[in-house]
């Protein structure tokens, strides 16, 4: 694979990034949305994609699991070129990608159990096994009591948590979160971020998270999940999570790709304005 310099791991093997975008561009009806986007997500890494509303963050996530096809450029996930795959072949690959959609996108004709267990149901897993694994996933998002409720009976925050449970129930190797805190109040947002941090620190799942809320992004970089207390806690003074780094979109282009430290010390006027 030309142009994809992979890092060398301790055993001297080249470890391939989980997600690679290479010069990706896409537009709709003559309106260019993303232009020449290149970045990588390495195994175990959490990348936070920042950008104002309408810049194309959701579009970028949909490109990553092949829901949209780029006009030009190439996209690799787990070494497979999703931008060149047929829809039929993508269904299998998406089995190891968990996606949390912007508004949750729960199936409103199905209850919480059937929503979370949808993929298991499709794979013809036995019914009591489904109930068991759904209960586990719901316990992770602390929503076991809602298992037989319908999406219409849930609050916005609960729906988002069910969506996270649905994405993680099959233990995916890559998680895509589209604005998981969008439209939620600050307290509910914090509980959602806590879940994302928990997933990151307990399972080390590679993930790409989209948000326009800077406070959420910084909370993820400066907090860790404590398994003893089962709570999120701030990292010691001046420490930041080394596996969490940033991407920023502005006006069709990727204007930033780097660590938390680089982001806060950037001299770019747009970035300074954004994080001020």
């Amino acid at each position: 694979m030309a142009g994809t310099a992979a890092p060398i791991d301790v055993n001297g093997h080249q470890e391939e990034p989980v997600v690679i975008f290479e010069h990706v561009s896409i537009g709709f009806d003559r309106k260019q949305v993303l232009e020449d986007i290149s970045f990588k997500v390495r195994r175990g890494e959490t990348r936070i994609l920042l950008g104002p509303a309408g810049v194309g963050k959701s579009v970028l996530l949909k490109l990553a699991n092949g829901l949209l096809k780029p006009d030009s450029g190439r996209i690799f996930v787990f070494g497979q070129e999703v931008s060149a795959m047929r829809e039929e072949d993508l269904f299998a690959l998406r089995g190891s990608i968990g996606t949390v959609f912007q508004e949750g996108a729960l199936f409103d004709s199905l209850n919480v159990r059937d929503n979370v267990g949808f993929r298991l149901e499709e794979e013809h897993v036995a019914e009591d096994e489904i109930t068991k694994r759904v209960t586990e996933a719901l316990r992770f998002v602390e929503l076991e009591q809602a298992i037989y409720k319908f999406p219409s009976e849930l609050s916005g925050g609960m729906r988002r948590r069910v969506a996270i449970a649905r994405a993680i129930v099959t233990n995916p190797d890559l998680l895509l979160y589209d604005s998981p805190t969008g439209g939620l109040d600050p307290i509910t947002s914090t509980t959602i971020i806590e879940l994302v941090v928990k997933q990151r620190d307990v399972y080390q799942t590679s993930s790409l998270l989209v948000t326009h809320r800077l406070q959420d992004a910084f909370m993820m970089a400066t907090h860790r999940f404590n398994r003893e207390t089962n709570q999120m806690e701030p990292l010691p003074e001046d420490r930041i999570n080394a596996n969490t780094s940033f991407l920023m979109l502005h006006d069709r282009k990727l204007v930033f790709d780097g660590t938390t430290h680089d982001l806060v010390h950037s001299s770019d006027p747009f970035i300074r304005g954004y994080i001020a």
Partner: protein
Amino acid sequence: MPLATLDTSARKYVLAVQQYVLLSARALGNVARKPFYGADVITQADSIGVGSLPIVLLTGFFLGGVLALQSSSTLAQFGAAAFTGQLVSFSMIKEIGPVVTSLMVSGRNASGMASELGSMMVTEQIDAMRALGTDPLKKLVMPRIVATIVMNFFLTILSDAVGILGGGLVSVMMLGQDGTQYFNTSYQSLQYPDIIQGLVKPVVFGFIIATIGCFYGMSTRGGTQGVGRSTTQAVVVSSVLIIASDFIISRFLIGILGR
């Protein structure tokens, strides 16, 4: 720039037709391919078939009745009122039954499919399904097409039957005709070509209803407003296509079957 707009709308139209053909072909190809969503076919058949039964029976019955009323007065001018039964059964089986049943089913179900799939589309439920590794063409579209074709077929037969019955009741009770004569003429004059025409049509119309309903549903854009637009368009387009294809099928089958 009127020429430019004409060009864009023509291109849009061609693109839409192409997408419609693609969707229909892929959904049909899925009938034979695994997994087969049997349970979803049954659910759809129940909602489409059982749900449409009352309106189809009611319209069939009254249309049969009105056909008897109208035709007997015309036939009486030629002293041929005794052929009322034949005229009613001919019209019901070859034209009115299939067309009106399908228009009813379309009004109820093409709109239902467009709005259901359309709201799933605008709330990203369709994308979520794809992201979960399930093909919406298999899970949502294929069951609707199969269920609509099968149900439209049987609903049409029922509509034909109650229409002939309704015509009979009107002939006997309101026009004072002989019941035995009515049912004898309506039955004896029927030939295979008539039956074949009457049974081919609901299959084609059922296909049109489901594919148009699903196509407009799956191509919904632009929020709640878009869902409303898709719903209306699905009913309008499927109704026009039903009537236009009725003409073509009739012409074609009369051509090969000779009547």
